């Protein structure tokens, strides 16, 4: 590829600076990601070598101070809370985007979107605090302590709701208007336009948004630690407490030493891989759509 640079007859020093600065920024960002990966791997390797992968699912429970390292409950915990969050945020987010795009009067839709953007800006620890002092006591009246899989799923669901709603909103906005107008000209009802025209056309954009929300839900820590109950077990009901991989790292990394510390890094590496796979999937979906 011939560069644009060579085609310009009188290059200015400003261009040279801009090019250098942007290149440096790009290289630094890439190097940081690689450094994180290298760091995680070197920290994780000792335990992988000494303990092996199989013990992470076959040991009797998670008691790192007594050399027992079964991470299965926490892997299940992360999967369950993420699934729960998507079950909360998916329908809510997509439906609210449909409302804002197709049903709400423009003035209401504008304010509604601002409200959703505000929700996106709330720090996660505030969600956690609200969950701990408001939501958890409410759920405790249903049964158990209230700090549970349900509380974690609801809080996580609220946190990723704006992400789903905003990406779905822009996916709907990107549907070619002639499709919508065509449907209207054929006398379709508003519901039929949404269900048979807009949703299929915006499907891949919505899916990519939901997956982005999945990756956020998997990595969220602070709010989950505050409301999940954090008992290491595979929950037998929605009201049972649960500990996620990220919550486990937050609770234990501070004092962990030797193998224990190394194992926490393994769970971090696992999360990184899971999130990367989600990102690849998003790229694929987005690529297939365009």
């Amino acid at each position, binding site marked *: 590829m011939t560069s644009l640079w060579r085609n310009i007859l009188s290059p200015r020093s400003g261009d040279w600076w801009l090019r*250098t600065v942007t*290149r*440096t920024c790009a*290289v*630094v960002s890439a*190097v*940081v990601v690689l*450094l994180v990966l290298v760091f995680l791997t070197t920290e994780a390797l000792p335990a992988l070598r000494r303990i092996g992968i199989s013990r992470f699912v076959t040991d009797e*429970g998670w*008691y*790192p*101070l*007594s050399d*027992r390292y079964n991470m299965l409950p926490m892997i299940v915990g992360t999967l369950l809370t993420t699934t729960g969050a998507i079950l909360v945020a998916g329908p809510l987010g997509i439906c609210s985007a449909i409302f804002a795009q197709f049903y709400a009067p423009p003035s209401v839709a504008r304010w509604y979107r601002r409200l959703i953007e505000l929700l996106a800006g709330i720090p996660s620890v505030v969600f956690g605090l609200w969950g*701990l*002092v408001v939501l*958890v*006591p409410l759920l*405790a009246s249903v049964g*158990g*302590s*209230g*700090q549970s899989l349900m509380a974690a799923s609801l809080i996580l669901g609220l946190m990723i709701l704006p992400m789903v709603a905003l990406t779905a909103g822009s996916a709907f906005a990107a549907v070619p208007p002639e499709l919508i107008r065509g449907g209207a000209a054929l006398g379709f009802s508003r519901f039929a336009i949404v269900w048979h025209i807009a949703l299929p056309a915006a499907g891949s954009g919505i899916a990519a948004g939901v997956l982005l929300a999945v990756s956020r839900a998997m990595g969220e820590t602070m709010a989950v*630690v*505050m409301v999940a*109950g*954090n*008992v*290491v077990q595979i929950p037998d009901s929605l009201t049972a*407490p649960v*500990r996620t991989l990220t919550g486990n790292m*937050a*609770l*234990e990394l*501070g*004092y*962990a*030493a030797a193998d224990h510390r190394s194992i926490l890094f393994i769970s971090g590496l696992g999360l990184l891989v899971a999130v990367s796979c989600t990102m690849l999937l998003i790229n694929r979906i987005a690529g297939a759509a365009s």
Partner: protein
Amino acid sequence: MRWKTVLTLGMLTAMIASGCREDSSAAAKATDQSGAKNQLTGRLTLTGSSTIAPLAAEIARRFEQQHPGVRIDVQSGGSGKGIADVRAGTADIGMASRALKAGEQDLEAYPIAADGVCLIVHARNEISQLDNDQVISVYTDRINNWKQLGGADLPITVVHKAEGRATLEVFLSYLGMENPAIHPDVIVGDNEHGIKTVAGAPGAVGYVSIGTAEANISAGVPIRMLPMQGVPATTENVATGRFPMSRPLNLVTSASPAPLSRAFIDYCQSEEVHDLIVAQYFVPTQR
């Protein structure tokens, strides 16, 4: 040619970024050694017990007023983190709300105050007292309803701490239990998290620092402290040594602390800060 300069520049930035932590603490050590003779200057980092952190922050503020050249950074994260950070050199002083263990004798501990660990229940709970066997039964799930202890018909929510917390170690060693034997319903991180959990669940029982619990009760949080072996959980009883489940609040350093660390520890142990210790509901120790 240009590409190479860009690449080296990028690598250099990344290296500076990754190395800047050691860099700053080394600089701090250099300054505090040179300035120790007359005017104290430099930067101190304290990490560790969430029980000690608020007290240390108050003392640090007063110390900074007296020595304008000194900056003290206090972070919490549990006693285990304090010990680990001092060993790793990322903190100058660790805060540990327990005595040093046999495996930690390479470090120096300086007691600044004492604190008790007490059981807390929701304010509406009618239970007035639990003996040690009852507590063990509750925490091992042999008793799971307050009715079995003479209270209301309400399931017991056992609130436990995450491993590595000093309150957990004091609690377990006092009752002679091992952590895997415990069947918790909720695991919390620090004292505040534990208190908010108990305050939100009428059937909950947990254990927290007496100092933190007293502060929350006077702020109107609906929790109540239970006596241990008939001794009411108060700071006075911790001071006289009557309260059975108590612990020292220690500052921890490596075997040879820097002069600035030494000066700060001396200040923490002096009578000048007793009002701050009492204000945080802890008990000053006599030197």
